[in-house]
């Protein structure tokens, strides 16, 4: 069995936030387009060093293609940066989009 790191104490762990958002567009968008648009926009705007501080993670299995909603995870200190960054995404491929923030929470259960 591979050795594993002991889990950090709760006080030392990073506090996470989940941001749920919906995409409005003329045609439904694909997850891959969304993922690449998020990373490109964030890296352009905040740079690699900036993005490294957000603990950013787009949760793939929570992408809902019917409702066009998704959830992005970050740490509790970076919520404003992430929301502002999402607002800077105006196109996914050829489609123009609008992102509406549906909620921000510390647990996934509250967002679902």
């Amino acid at each position, binding site marked *: 069995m591979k050795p594993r790191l002991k889990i950090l104490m709760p006080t030392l762990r990073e506090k996470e936030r989940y941001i749920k958002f919906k995409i*409005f567009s003329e045609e439904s968008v694909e997850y891959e387009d969304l993922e690449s648009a998020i990373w490109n926009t964030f890296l352009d705007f905040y740079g690699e060093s900036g993005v490294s501080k957000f603990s950013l993670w787009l949760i793939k299995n929570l992408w809902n293609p019917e409702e066009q909603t998704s959830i992005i995870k970050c740490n509790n200190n970076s919520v404003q940066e992430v929301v502002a960054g999402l*607002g800077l995404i*105006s196109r996914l491929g050829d489609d123009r989009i609008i992102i509406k923030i549906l909620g921000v929470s510390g647990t996934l259960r509250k967002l679902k």
Partner: protein
Amino acid sequence: MQFYDLHIHSAFAEGESSLEQLAETAKSLGYKGICFSAYFSGDSQIKQLKEKIADVAKKIKIEIFLGFEARNIKDLEKLKNRRQKFDLLLVHGGDLELNKLACETPEVDLLTHPELERNDSGLNHILVKAAEKNNVAIEINFREVLLASKKTRGKILANLQKNVELAKKFGAKIVLCSGAISHFELKDPQVLASFATQIGMSLQDATNSISKIPQEILTENKKRLSNRWVMPGVEIVKEAKE
């Protein structure tokens, strides 16, 4: 919380989307009210736009206001004389002379993008003090940042930060607007507030800039449209008996 976007252009004023599309999108994003800015072309235009806006507001059930944006000194003079006929008077910033005149004119409600196409921020301590004295709000225009190239975005952000710093120091009002010309350029109020935190505003101030401050401006303007209003700060409270 009630959110307002005070600077939107429809197809009536060089925009791409119709009044209906913009109003519907704004409503779904959670706005309580929006203001359509048009460019003045004649007295008949005011009446026509007011009628159209009233129709759309009734249909979509959202508050819609009519604003006129002055693009030069001549426009500003014309609009000043017709001030009681529409809801908001905006001034298209960027030109230093026009920025100065806007800050010194009490009839003006909003100086839009004072840093537009400039190397500097378009405002200094004297202009911001004048804006505060005359109750002129300074706009942070999100569209300017959204559409900027990677090369110029840094400069625009630096200029916006400078204006926020000056406005905070001298107590001038800041209003956050999408500046949208298409319904795809409208932004969620939360996105606008979060963006403002990136250019030096606190989250509380940023939220006030899309809710409380626009609401105050609109309330003040409702008074302005009444018969009792004389000039900024002066209104008839009680008429003297002869």
